């Protein structure tokens, strides 16, 4: 057995810091602190230096801070669990891994976004602080031990995302996306807040531990406020992860927002919202029998979500729109794990987050090389002939799409296998079967992209267009690393699965 090594806290300096800070333990929020500083610094730079030079400085600065945040997340993940701010937030391996996902994905996104926006001919420096604020928000959501903190994190994230969706203020579609997203996001936040209020009313606390102590393995039905509150919170989070029927914003916003923003929105925030909800459910310590209502409900939502996502994707022509529906379908698979609601399923959930983030960012980074004319050429016809004139890019396209549709030996297959396998082991046979049928449907639209890229003859002008693509170093590194990771995890998934299982024990 290959074990994941979790070094005990040996660093005497770290212990000393903990001692000095006492109950506050601000030290456990080190990644948030670093990235917040980064966000503030980049905002200052944006105010001072305009246009291209500022963009470059900002780019380098935010890469530096996000990297520092990533390193500190890794370090915190290796430490034993601990509380900060009088138990309002806590750090453990679970939050550590998710923090790594957030800061890592933001780092990858920024590496690509810089060249993407340069190609788009826009210098938008607000991009950098906003992404970093979003990361801070997500980190608080996962680390939170209190519903108020969860809400706070979610709002930091949401407000950043609203602005990010409309960040290209010259593009009307981007503006439309921002307004739609904001209107509906505000609407859904109300549900979340109302849900929190009901739970507070029902249990007398917003702290997860206090709530757990109150419920204490008794039925959640002791008063109606608790189940109703949980359902309303589910709606609030469901909106963020685009769960059907709260998904309607997704295609419009994903299509309207600039490509790399879409890439960001479709990955880390979903992991944040779902993991926060899963953490709330797990730490509420629900008695298995009393949560049958929830299990059934989430199970139905999972099936509806993946089915609607996949069916809607079939007839789309715009790749960004396809990816929007694809992300809805993936949330459906993730909801299967939430539905099973035990620790093993959470391990599968974490594994799926890792894989989904990696392959999605890889695919979007690849698209960012191809994007022209404010992403309007990213249609099925628009990518004809790519495989023939740029075989290397075609190969990467193939890897990412195979992984998204779950074909071995890619990471996407391992992730789906793990989720469906967990479902079968816990006797959720129907969910597993429907999930597998759905991923069969999904193969159609992913492979259709491959069909257009490889088989269809290119239109006359497009060969020129492909040969003009310059491989930007940062972007290429991101694509290469993600593609390699997709294959590596696909062939040897053991390590990350172990890590996920370990993380769950710490919750």
């Amino acid at each position: 057995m290959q074990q994941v090594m979790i070094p005990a806290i040996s660093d005497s300096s770290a212990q000393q810091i903990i001692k000095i800070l006492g109950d506050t333990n601000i030290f456990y929020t080190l990644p948030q602190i670093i990235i917040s500083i980064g966000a503030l610094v980049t905002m200052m730079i944006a105010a001072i230096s305009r246009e291209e030079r500022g963009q470059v400085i900002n780019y380098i600065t935010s890469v530096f801070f996000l990297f520092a945040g990533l390193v500190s997340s890794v370090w915190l993940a290796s430490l034993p669990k601990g509380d900060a701010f009088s138990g309002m937030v806590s750090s453990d391996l679970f939050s550590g891994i998710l923090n790594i996902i957030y800061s890592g994905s933001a780092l990858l996104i920024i590496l690509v976004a810089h060249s993407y926006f340069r190609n788009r001919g826009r210098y938008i420096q607000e991009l950098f602080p906003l992404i970093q604020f979003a990361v801070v928000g997500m980190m608080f959501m996962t680390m939170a031990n209190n519903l108020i903190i969860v809400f706070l994190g979610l709002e930091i994230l949401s407000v950043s995302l609203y602005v990010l969706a409309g960040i290209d203020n010259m593009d009307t579609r981007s503006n439309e996306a921002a307004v739609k997203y904001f209107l509906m996001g505000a609407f859904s936040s109300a549900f979340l807040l109302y849900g929190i209020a009901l739970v507070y009313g029902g249990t007398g606390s917003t702290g997860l531990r206090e709530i757990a102590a109150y419920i204490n393995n008794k039925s959640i039905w002791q008063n109606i406020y608790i189940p109703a509150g949980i359902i309303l919170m589910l709606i609030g989070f469901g909106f963020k992860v685009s769960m059907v029927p709260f998904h309607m914003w997704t295609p419009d916003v994903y299509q309207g927002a600039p490509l790399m923003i879409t890439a960001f929105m479709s990955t880390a925030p979903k992991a944040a919202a779902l993991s926060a909800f899963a953490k709330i459910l797990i730490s509420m310590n629900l008695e298995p029998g009393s949560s049958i209502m929830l299990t059934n409900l989430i199970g139905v939502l999972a099936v509806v979500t993946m089915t609607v996502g996949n069916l809607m994707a079939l007839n789309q022509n715009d790749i960004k729109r396809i990816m929007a529906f694809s992300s809805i379908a993936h949330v459906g698979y993730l909801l299967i794990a939430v539905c099973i609601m035990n620790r093993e399923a959470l391990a599968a959930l974490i594994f799926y987050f890792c894989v989904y983030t990696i392959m999605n960012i890889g695919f979007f980074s690849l698209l960012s090389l191809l994007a022209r004319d404010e992403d309007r050429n990213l249609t099925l016809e628009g990518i004809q002939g790519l495989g023939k004139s740029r075989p290397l890019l075609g190969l990467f396209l193939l890897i990412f799409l195979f992984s998204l549709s779950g074909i071995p030996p890619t990471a996407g297959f391992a992730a789906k296998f793990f989720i469906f396998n967990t479902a079968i082991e816990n006797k959720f046979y129907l969910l597993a079967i429907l999930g597998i049928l759905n991923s069969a449907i999904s193969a159609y639209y992913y492979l259709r992209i491959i069909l257009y890229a490889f088989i269809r003859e290119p239109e006359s002008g497009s060969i020129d267009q492909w040969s003009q693509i310059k491989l930007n170093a940062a972007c290429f590194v991101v694509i290469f690393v993600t593609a390699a990771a997709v294959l590596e995890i696909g062939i040897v998934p053991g390590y990350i699965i172990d890590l996920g299982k370990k993380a769950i024990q710490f919750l």
Partner: protein
Amino acid sequence: MNFSEYAWLIVFSPFIGFLINGLVGRKFSEKTIGLIGSLASTLSFVISVLIFFQYSALSQKAPIQIDLFKWIVAGGINVSIGYQIDSLSLVMVLVVTGVGSLIHFYSIGYMHGEKGFARYFAYLNLFMFSMLNLVLGNNILLMFLGWEGVGLCSYLLIGYYYETDYAPTAGKKAFIVNRIGDFGFLIGIFLIIQNFGTLNFTELSTVVAKGTSVGNDTIFWITLMLFVGATGKSAQIPLYVWLPDAMAGPTPVSALIHAATMVTSGVYMIARLSFLYVLAPETMAIVAFVGGATALFAATIGTQQNDIKKVLAYSTVSQLGFMFMAVGVGAFTAGIFHLVTHAFFKALLFLGSGSIIYALHHEQDMRNMGGLRKKLPVTFFTFLMGTLAIAGTPFFSGFFSKDEILWKVFNYSSLLFWMGALAAMLTSFYMFRLVFMTFFGEMRYHEHGGHHVHESPAVMTVPLIILAVLSVFGGFMGIPHVLDVFHVGNYFEHFLSSSVKDSLPIVFGTKEEWGTMSLSVIIAIIGFTIAYVIYLKKKYVPGDDSTIKGYKKVIYNKYYVDEMYERTVISGTIRISKTVYEYFDKLVIDGIVNGVGKSIRRIGEGIRGTQTGLVRDYMLTMIIGVSIMLVYVLVNKFMMIRL
């Protein structure tokens, strides 16, 4: 320094060579490509030698396990990518990397000027990688991965001259026939998982040694199914038909894959799983008799072939039969010993024939050769050494190993012994027939257009010389004890004993051992004499294909086995699949698939209308969703109250 920690490098060094030559090889010169490929293989050899010396110095020869990482964890099955070093795998690794490296160097000369030089070396390295996984893997699944990998490389290399029409066909044939065997192998693996719950060799043998509750019937089926896999890969009856056709590949490939290494993996597999096989005496008997029948049957075909490589191909099938005969009767050590010596002399013979073919510009028909002794002195001399070795001339390597097999078989069954003895006589006959037809007599090759026949370059002749030395002296590592006048002992058997032990009881004494040994010498002389009279004294040269008559025609056409397969299995399969395609696939399956596909798309088209783009519609949907969910909670609540 503990070299076995670097065992992974043995496996991955050729893989790196494959990556370099496969990805960027086209940009390099032939010399660079050849050196990268050969050095990658040589590095593996050097490490194996170092590990070998360290390992053989150990007093306790326990298997060394090198687990790299966990590969598959599903249900109760836990498979890692891990390697096992013990005496058996070390012997195999030394043969594979040693002979393999020589053939790599030889290929630099032989493949000079061929199109796709880099492709060739990339495949060759990939083959080495797969083969080393096969022999070093510490579990059956990794062995199977290597097993499939070598099959793939064999397919790619047989079809190397893909512009001809026969090479791709031969490649396909090899692949398909092997798939049939692999199917059996897979069933064997599944049965092992089902009954033992582990695929790791060490764990498996521990389970078996403790006394297992698995029934004898099950073990019979497991071992038999695995042997079906072996008949495919190691070209035994009834799945041997692909190997002669596989000669369409470049000659060094025939030497490496289709003589020295890959085709012997079935023998290795049985030796590796000997602890299971000894529990199934019925399977062992089947293995032994299939081996004996193949040895005899292939040897008869070999006597009438005129293509130099075809003779050697049937000879390989026949010699593999000898090895299976040995492992079948429980003389695992003798089987592996013959595997090793065979690797030396058969690689030598193939490379020698390659040298001839190279000199004669791809002429392979022996009827157009003759008298090459003077033109190709080095090739002739080394080839003669190989022939003497395979024919069983006393004190040449083949003598020791073949005699050992015949002696052990004699202890098991006299019928099998006589089959083997007859096959040995035919071996001696067809090999000398080959030598006389190519090297002696008049030169029947017409030199045209200024192309003179001359000896191959040193890069080809040096490997020949090294292999010739090994073929002559290689047998001394396993001296039979009647000849052991200096009491040095049978080193080979002693070394292997830490991982494989013979299960065959020796019932006869020294007298009989002398008897079988003398008999095998006499047999070899008889075979030689017949060949000498017909092909050297009478200077007989077979005529054109159309003039071959009678029993010779039947043998020349390989007993029409290919035609029989064609008429029955192949055309039957085609007819069945055509019927299924017409009536079941087109009507039922396509109907369902297209119907489902169409209706799913139609549903998608339908719900697409909900995406209006208007925020008010979206919010309405949300409200409806929220309402349904809250009503659901209330319904649940009331049901709780009623309960």
